[in-house]
C-alpha cells in the first residue's frame, strides 16, 4: 500500500525541484543510438564471445612466430611467446569488463548501504560513518586500493575486492546526500508513523528513489575501476601470467617495446577505447536518467 503512495510523491518532488534548469530528456532511442552506446555494445559482444571468435587460445604459444608484426593472420601481431595479441586482447576484454562490473557492484553495494544508513538514521550513525568515509576519501588516488591489495596479497580476486572497496566511499557520499533530503519527505514520515521498520523504509522507499543517480555514478565508476585495475595489473599487483589481462599485457610488451610496439600498443588502445566509450555513454545516460548530476 505505502508503495503506491510513495512513488508519485517522490516523482512530484523531483519534478518541482529541478523543473527550471532541467534539460529536455533525450529519448530512449536516442540514448541507445549514440556512437558511444554502439561502441560499447560491440566491445561487450566481442568480449562475451571471445571464446568463439578468438582465432587463437589465451595462452597458446608459438615460439617460431614470436614478435611478428600485425598481418592478416595476426591482426595485432604476436608477442614474445608467439601468442596472438588480438586473441589475448579479446580475452583481456572479458576479464576487464568482469573486473569493472564486479568491483563497481562491490563498491556500489557497500557504499550505498553505508551511505543510506548514514543519511537515513542521521545523528551518531551519520557522524561516525561520515568521519570514517572522509578519512578513506583522504587517501590520495589509488593508494587505498594499493594498501588493500597489500593486505590481501596480490591476486586477481583480491584486486577486484580492493578496487571495489576503494570505490565504496564515493558511492556512500553520493547516496548519503540524497538520503538526507529524502528522509524528511512526507511519504517517508508517513511510513514511519504507521510503524514501518527503518530498513523496510530504506529498501522500499529510499533506495528506489536513488536508483538513477547510482546507476549513472556506477557507469562512470566502471570506467574508472577498469583504469585503476589495469594500472595495478601493470604493476604486478593483479593477475598472474599467462592470464590475458590488459594491464599485464602492456607490462609484458614493455621489454620488447623497441622491436615490437604492437605488443604494448593494442592492449592499451583497448583500454582507452573501452573507457572512452563507457565515459561518454555514462555522460549520455546522465542527461537521460539524472540531469542534475550530469557533469563534464
Amino acid at each position, binding site marked *: 500500500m505505502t508503495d503506491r503512495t510513495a512513488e508519485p510523491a517522490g516523482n512530484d518532488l523531483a519534478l518541482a525541484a529541478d523543473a527550471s534548469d532541467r534539460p529536455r530528456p533525450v529519448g530512449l532511442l536516442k540514448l541507445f543510438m549514440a556512437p558511444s552506446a554502439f561502441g560499447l555494445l560491440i566491445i561487450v559482444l566481442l568480449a562475451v564471445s571471445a571464446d568463439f571468435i578468438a582465432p587463437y587460445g589465451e595462452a597458446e604459444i608459438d615460439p617460431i612466430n614470436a614478435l611478428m608484426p600485425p598481418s592478416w593472420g595476426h591482426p595485432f601481431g604476436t608477442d614474445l611467446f608467439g601468442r596472438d595479441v588480438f586473441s589475448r586482447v579479446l580475452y583481456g576484454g572479458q576479464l576487464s569488463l568482469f573486473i569493472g562490473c564486479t568491483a563497481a557492484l562491490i563498491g556500489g553495494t557497500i557504499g550505498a548501504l553505508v551511505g543510506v544508513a548514514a543519511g537515513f538514521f542521521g545523528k551518531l550513525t551519520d557522524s561516525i560513518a561520515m568521519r570514517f568515509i572522509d*578519512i578513506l576519501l583522504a587517501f590520495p588516488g589509488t593508494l587505498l586500493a594499493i594498501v588493500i591489495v597489500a593486505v*590481501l*596479497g596480490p591476486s586477481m580476486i583480491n584486486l577486484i575486492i580492493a578496487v571495489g572497496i576503494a570505490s565504496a566511499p564515493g558511492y556512500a557520499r553520493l547516496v548519503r546526500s540524497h538520503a538526507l533530503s529524502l528522509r524528511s519527505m512526507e511519504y517517508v514520515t508517513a511510513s514511519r508513523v504507521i510503524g514501518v521498520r527503518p530498513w523496510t523504509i530504506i529498501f522500499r522507499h529510499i533506495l528506489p528513489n536513488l536508483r538513477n543517480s547510482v546507476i549513472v555514478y556506477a557507469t562512470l565508476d566502471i570506467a574508472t575501476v577498469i583504469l585503476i585495475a589495469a*594500472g595495478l595489473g*601493470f604493476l604486478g*599487483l593483479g593477475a598472474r601470467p599467462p592470464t590475458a589481462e590488459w594491464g599485464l599485457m602492456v607490462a609484458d610488451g614493455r621489454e620488447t617495446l623497441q622491436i615490437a610496439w604492437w605488443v604494448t600498443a593494442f592492449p592499451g588502445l583497448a583500454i582507452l577505447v573501452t573507457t572512452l566509450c563507457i565515459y561518454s555513454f555514462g555522460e549520455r545516460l546522465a542527461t537521460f536518467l539524472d540531469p542534475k548530476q550530469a557533469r563534464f
Partner: protein
Amino acid sequence: MAGYALWRIGAAVPVLFGMVLVVFLLLNVLPVDPIQVMITQTGSGQAPSASATQETIDNIRRELGLDRPLHVQFLAYLGNALSGDLGSSFRSNQPVAEMIAEQYPYTIRLALAGLTATLVLGLTFGIIAGLWPGSLIDRLLVLVATLGIAAPTFWLGLMLIFAFSIVYPIFPVLGVGSLQAIFLPAITLGLPGAAIVARLTRSNLAAVMKEDYIVTARSKGVSGRLLVLRHAMPNVLAPVLTVIGLQFGNLMTGTVIVETVFSRPGIGRLGVDAILQSDYPVVQGFTLVMATTYVVVNLMVDLIHMWVDPRIRDQ
C-alpha cells in the same frame, strides 16, 4: 583569517590520525602472520626453514612487541612514527624511515615536474579554448582532453617512450638527473590532470568572459592580454586551484606507475616492491608518507587559496 587558518590546520590533524589508524589496522589484521613472512624472507629469502621453532617465533614476537594488545601497539607505533621511527624492513633490516628518506626526493621532484606539466598544459590550452568557445581549436582540445582522461597512464608513458625515445630519439629512455630525462615522465604524469584543468579553465573562462564586469572593462577600453590575465583569470583560477590540490593526490599515486614505466627510483617503486615481497613495515611507511604528503599539500592549497582570495582574506 588567522583564526580560519588555525582551524584549517587543526582540522587536518584528526584526518591524519585517522589515516594512520586505518593503515595500522589494515596491516595488522593481515591474513598472514608477519613473523612467518620474516622467517621465510630474511637473509637469503630461502624456503621456510624447519628450524624455526615455536620458541624462536615467540621470541621474535616479543622482541617486536607483537604480543602486546593492539591499542598498545598502535600507540607505540604512533609515538615512534612521530619521532621519525617507522620500524625496520623485514627483508633488509634497514630502518624504513631511512629507505624512504633516500627515495622521497626523487618522487617529490617527479611530482612537482608533473604538476608543472599539468599547470602549463592545462592552463594554456584551457585559456585558448575558453576564449574562443565553439571554435575548431576548442572542439579539438575538448576531444584531446577527453582522451587524456580516458588513457591509461602506464600505456601513455610507454607510447611516449616509443615515439620520442625510440622512433625519434629526442629524449633519453633512461636517466634520472637531467632536465631532459624528466620531460617525458612529467608529461605522462601531468597529462590526465592537465586534461581536467583544461576543461575546468575552459568552461570557467567562457562563463566569466560573459560577466558584466568584463563587458564593462571592455567598454572602458581594456583589451587583450590585460583583460584576460588581470580581470578574468583571478576568478577563473580559484576553483582551478582547489582542483589542483585534489589532483596532487593522483599525481602522488601516479608516480608509482610512472616510476615503474620509466625505471626511475622513488618511493612508489619502493612501495610496490615491498607489497610484492610482503615487507609490511615498508608498505606501512610508504602509505603514511604518501597520505601525509597529500594532506599537507591540500592544507597548503587551502591556505594559498585563502591568501589569494580577498573575499576569504578580509573576513
